[in-house]
């Protein structure tokens, strides 16, 4: 019997195998059920708390160290039950780097002098800790207004600043920190209303190993510019870039410091948009690429459909800056809202990999004016991939009676938010803020009681959100300082891209 069916059986078997081979090889595309490690290795675009790692390193953008009236601090929050040890290395513009060890007690914050007593023009700090749970940021106590800046987890070979302002002789300093032992060479270019400029002096700037270089844009031919975007690209090596802005007029007053954007992004999120009397809000969109970019601006006003309903489209010419004054948009009602700015250039659906090409950089400039008192804050948005379910504010909401966190729900699902502080007893929800309702595509501003505002704050949500902090500028100045909170890096965050 087998003799008779043997040949057809063989032919059938072979044909099935050949068919299977062709099907698998040419047609069948298997679904990846589990992502290999390398799939998670995409670059996280904004500073974040690493989480499970055994160590973490933070590169702070730098502080002015020569002005005795200015005080600078490095704030390190330890949410764990064990002490965190590490080193703080201070890089200066004139002196060699110095290192010292530090210990942060469990469930507390450590505040360290960001200058280490040195009197260099600029100093920036590298903080290396033996815990991935720690979070670090830099705070400058300035007479023109206190400012908190995030510290970077990584260096980058390019940095962008969408908003630079030298109007009314305002100061605008770019701080370039090279934490590596070898020199790094960078090219700096800037964009004004007249177009892109790259002076020869700003080409091939050598950043010595383990040093900080400060560049005053006003002294580099960009004086009195109301529009001034800067891009710094390394021809070899990597570095960290931050900015110090001291606004002196033309509608802006105050002091702000910030980390630059290490990359462009297709999307930028802002939790705290506001329209109202005395609030002048601008979105500064910088297109550092060689092609024109179209961006859509959507406002998160509590309706998920609003995100999709005919958003505002702006065209940002190649290498130029476009400013959108949201205060003048009649379609937006007074009140708070979140903002999503997305580049719609190219194939939006298939181009998920934001690292593959360059898009735009967006900063939000908010000037609050009342009775001839003005306070200006500048915030870099949260780029693609940044929305997370867990955020933290290492330095709490430190100054004054005005302090709040603004949470924007970036999803189309309603969610709840829990706000906790980390004190000596560990993480404890703030009474009344255990379960704050937050509707889809909406924002909520949560005031933090002054009594606990100086503790590390933890914001947890069931969906991905963007969290921004607003706090007093201190020194009885009008207006608010603003900065993003720090998201936790997690698989959910990474895969959500």
């Amino acid at each position, binding site marked *: 019997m087998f003799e008779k069916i*043997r040949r057809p059986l063989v032919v059938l078997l072979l044909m099935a195998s050949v068919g299977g081979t062709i099907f698998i090889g040419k047609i069948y595309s298997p679904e990846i059920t589990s992502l290999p490690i390398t799939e998670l290795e995409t670059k996280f675009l904004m500073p974040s708390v690493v989480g499970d790692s*055994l160590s973490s390193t933070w590169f702070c953008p730098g502080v002015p160290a020569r002005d005795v009236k200015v005080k600078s601090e490095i704030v390190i929050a330890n949410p764990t039950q064990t002490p965190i040890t590490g080193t703080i290395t201070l890089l200066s513009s004139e002196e060699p780097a110095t290192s010292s060890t530090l210990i942060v007690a469990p469930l507390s914050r450590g505040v360290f002098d960001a200058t280490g007593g040195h009197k260099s023009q600029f100093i920036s700090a590298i903080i290396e800790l033996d815990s991935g749970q720690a979070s670090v940021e830099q705070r400058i106590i300035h007479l023109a207004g206190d400012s908190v800046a995030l510290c970077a987890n*990584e260096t980058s070979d390019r940095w962008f600043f969408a908003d630079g302002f030298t109007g009314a002789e305002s100061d605008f300093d770019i701080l370039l920190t090279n934490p590596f032992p070898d020199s790094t060479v960078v090219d700096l270019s800037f964009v004004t209303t007249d177009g892109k400029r790259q002076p020869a002096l700003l080409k091939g700037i050598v950043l010595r190993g383990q040093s900080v270089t400060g560049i005053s844009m006003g002294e580099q031919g960009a004086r009195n510019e109301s529009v001034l975007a800067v891009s710094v690209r390394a021809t070899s*090596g990597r570095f960290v870039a931050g900015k110090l802005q001291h606004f002196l007029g033309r509608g802006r007053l105050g002091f702000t410091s910030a980390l630059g954007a290490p990359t462009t992004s297709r999307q930028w999120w802002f939790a705290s948009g506001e329209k109202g009397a005395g609030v002048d809000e601008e979105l500064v969109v910088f297109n550092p690429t060689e092609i024109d970019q179209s961006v859509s601006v959507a406002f998160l006003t509590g309706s998920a459909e609003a995100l999709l309903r005919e958003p505002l489209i702006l065209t940002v010419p190649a290498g130029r800056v476009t400013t959108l004054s949201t205060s003048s948009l009649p379609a937006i009602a007074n009140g708070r809202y979140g903002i999503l700015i997305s580049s719609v250039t190219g194939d939006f659906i298939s181009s998920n990999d934001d690292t593959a090409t360059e898009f735009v950089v967006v900063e939000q400039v908010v000037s609050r004016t009342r009775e001839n008192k003005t306070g200006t804050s500048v915030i870099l948005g949260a780029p693609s991939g940044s929305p997370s379910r867990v955020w933290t504010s290492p330095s709490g909401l430190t100054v004054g009676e005005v302090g709040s966190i603004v949470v924007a729900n970036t999803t189309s699902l309603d969610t709840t938010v829990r706000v906790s502080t980390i004190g000596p007893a560990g993480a404890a929800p703030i009474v009344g803020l255990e379960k704050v309702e937050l509707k889809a595509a909406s924002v909520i501003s949560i005031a933090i009681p002054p009594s606990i505002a100086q503790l590390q704050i933890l914001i947890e949500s069931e969906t991905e959100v963007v969290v921004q902090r607003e706090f007093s500028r201190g020194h009885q100045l009008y207006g608010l300082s603003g900065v993003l909170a720090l998201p936790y890096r997690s698989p959910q965050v990474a895969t959500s891209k």
Partner: protein
Amino acid sequence: MSRVRFGSSKSGENSAPPVVTAMVVHQPGPWFDEVLQSLASQDYAALSHVFFLTSQVVNAKADTAASQLLMKKIQTVLPESIVRIVEGNPGFGALINETQRIVEGNRGLFCVMHDDVLLQSSTISQLVHEMLVSNASVVGPKLVQWDNPTILKSVGLLIDRCGEVDPLIEANERDQEQHDSVKDIFFISSACMLIRADTFRELDGFCREISFFGEDLEFCWRAHLSGARVIVAPSAVVRHREMFTQRAPEFSRDALTARHRVRTVTTLTWRLELPLVWLQMLVTSVIETIFGVFSGNFRGSLANLRATVSVFVDFAYVWGRRREVRKVRRVPASDISKMQVRGSARITKFIRHRRALESSSIASAAKSQKLWRQSSTREAGFALLVIFSLIIIGSRGIILNGSRTVGEFLPFEGGANTAGSLMQMFRSGWWSSGFGEAAANPTGLGILAFGGFFVFGNLAFLETLMIVGSLFVGFFGMWRLCGSLYNTRARLVGATVYVALPLSYDAIARGRFSALLTVAALPWVFDLLRRSGGLQPNERIDGSTNSLLSNSEKSTDVGISRLTQLISALVLILGLVTAFAPAILVITFIGVILWCVASVFGGTSVRSIGTMLSVGVVGVFGSLFINLPWSMHFVSGKWWELLTSDQSIGDRNLGLVTLASLDFGNITGGTLVLASYFCVACSLLVANSWRFVWALRSSFLVVGGLLLAVLDDQGLLPFQMPEPVIILSLVACGLALASATCASVFSETSTKKTSDWRRSVGLLVPVAMSVAILPTLLSVVDGRWHQPDATVSQLFAQMPDNPADGNYRTLFVGDNELLPISTNSVTNKVSYGVSDDGPVNIISHWAPQRTAMNALADHALTALINRQTVRVGRLMSPLAIRYIVVPLGNQPSQSSRLIIDSLSNQIDLRRLYFAKDLVIFENSAWLPIVSLLDEESAVASEKVGESALIVRELRSMRPLFVDDQSVSNKTVSDSFEGGTVHLAVPFNKNWQLTVDSARLSPRVAFGASTAFDAPIKGVAKLSFRTSKFRDLYLFVQALIWFGLLILAANFSRFRRQVRAVTGESVRLVADDSQKIIKLDRFSK
């Protein structure tokens, strides 16, 4: 002319001597009826007949069904005949000798006959008459062609001193009675030979060691030595078919004829003449072999040369046989020499042939006699010459300047490597590559050291030999495997296609040493499998449809001795390759399964399949066994990854076309190789009879191999497979075998003309094959099979060799296939490996992979990949990693780019070199392999974990024991002031630091490495204590390898050759009765 009719004589005195015909019958054709009738019609009365019927041996048992039928047929025609059925076919001479048992008495004559001779009715009487008249002992008839009796086949034969036969007549010479005189002759064909019984008994019959081809020469030569007369009686005429080789293709006529000729000459020539005669044979064979390439007789001449040379291994047989023959030597050697042709029978034949060609009629006949076999051997000779030339021309760059260091092609003699140092390393109990481990060194090191001695220490030559030689080894392996098709042209096609597929050349281009060795070895594995299965062709016909049965392969019994030999050879081959490429075991196992499944469908006997399966499994495990103690390395939780050597690399997405074309982008027009798949389909369509089984085997190898490769390529297998080139070696074997099967089928159909459509399809097969081999042909121009011009290793010169600031390690990280050393996987895309300072060499081909230091490296790299640290340099400082090298290749992968990105972010790394294809970082926080730690670092070394490394930088006060030796072979000593000595190797208590006379014990440092706390100052010396049993292990291992070599070479067969011949070699399985014949009426 009056004739005496002995058989019809009534007188007792004049009665004719009884004649007993003895015939061996082996699977005869329809013509056998005529043979029987001719015997029955003899006019000689005193005639008896003895027949020996051979039988088929199936599954170790004699299948006598056909023989029984034949016996009945014989007894119908010749009722008084004695018929013996024997097991198998033990040989013509051996069977004829059995006549001595069946026939009693010496007073009679034996007429020895083939089963394909047709006697005239008076042939026997004529032969007897001439014997009596001439007082000869051996008489032979005139042989003419069966189909055309006017054409002569033989009128007796002469030989020269070398045993070369002079047939006296020209091929296709017409019988015009020009040779019809009775004459003394040196020997006559055993096709029909009348022998006096007493002479036959005195000479003890034919030589039992000569199975076929040459028994007549040997017998007649001994007859001459004993004083007997050998004549030819042309009046007796016999028609002869002479088609034995077609009926029994398993016997290689050329090889057997040559071997038996040489043995006959060396056993029967006078001892003082022998050296000169042997030298003459050798010179003649060598010249003939060279000319054979062009004359179409390459195969035969090569057989002659081999037989001549093998006299040395036959020495024992020759010696014993000469002693046996000594008792019959009565005639002086000079008398024998007079009977031999003076000069060379070969030249005599040649001259005669040239003269004959002048005759147009003979020339015409010779032209029509263009034998297939001759033409195929001529083609084979030419083709071999061309193929070998092309391989050598294509490899000229490698042959002249050595291989470039690419992929796994690491220089054998890089650094301080010599054959001696390799052997020293092999003997050491410290495996020094990678981070090192207290374990047995790889067997491959020992093999290289051993090989190094054979090439007089020139390891570079050994490397070239292994690379280029692999191409030839693969060719000959496929040549042997295709020998199963019993057709020279098929063998040639199979071997040519195999060597022309781009797989080996791609392996050379990309430096895939493991793949190259696997491709070379796999045909040998299959050849040994088929030999162990005793697979033989067998054309069986379906009685109902009168067509050839497709599943008609025959399985002959393979004796235990032969099986032992085959298994030993398989274990040796696999063991040898496993020492370098363990993945061959996986592929062999899969190949054996596919082979056996195909055999099941092909109808191969269960016993053969079982044998092949068992042999395959024994081969796999045996090869692991002979690689002990190194192969204990595979006893690990990750044994599969270690065996496949693929480091969990999957989901390559090369694509079906790339895989099927066996080309990974290194050869122009690689897609043309797809044409070779036509042969696979074609072989299935056209193969008939036993060839269909071969078509099936080739198809299963192709389809199974390709399916596996595609599944692995898509990441659909639950386990990792070896790299694609290694999997595809199965496909290459299948393609070559399919091509050979097609060639075999078409060569048969073209001669038999049984099917027109097959010939039509056959026209396309050469086209497909030509197209398929075209890409490789074009690659010959390159000279080194497209190895890259600039290799990564050339850039390593930027890294110092034995620097004053201490010995260091280099970490290679990135795509597995781009790394030039043995690797560990970190993710499914990223692997790493480390090497000591100095040039990377072959030692790095193997590395221990599961040490505590590997765990440290794994953690550091995982943190790097996940961007959890910017201090990877510190994490790697206890590993003594100074340089981090990321090869990028022509098209950097996404994972490599991410690694570069992450490495660029590390603040304790310097960018030393940054190019499109390679990036090198220097770790500013590195520690030398042996270093004296400062106080803080010494304290930190007592801690376990990354936190001890991250927070502060480890500092070395100074390096120790800086030289170009590996850490276990440090020859220098160093003075120091005391402190903690850190040794960047996995902890082992056999490490020993001696300061002056004080021996210090090591401790674990950083949870992985080794440290000595030495609070004393003095002269320090570092050493590793190797177990005394290590040498014993190696001695036992060497004995095992040597034993296997002896078994595989089967030296015992030479002992068997001199063993006394007993009647046991012929085994009767059935006969008609216990009848015997008594010769008692013979008188002179």
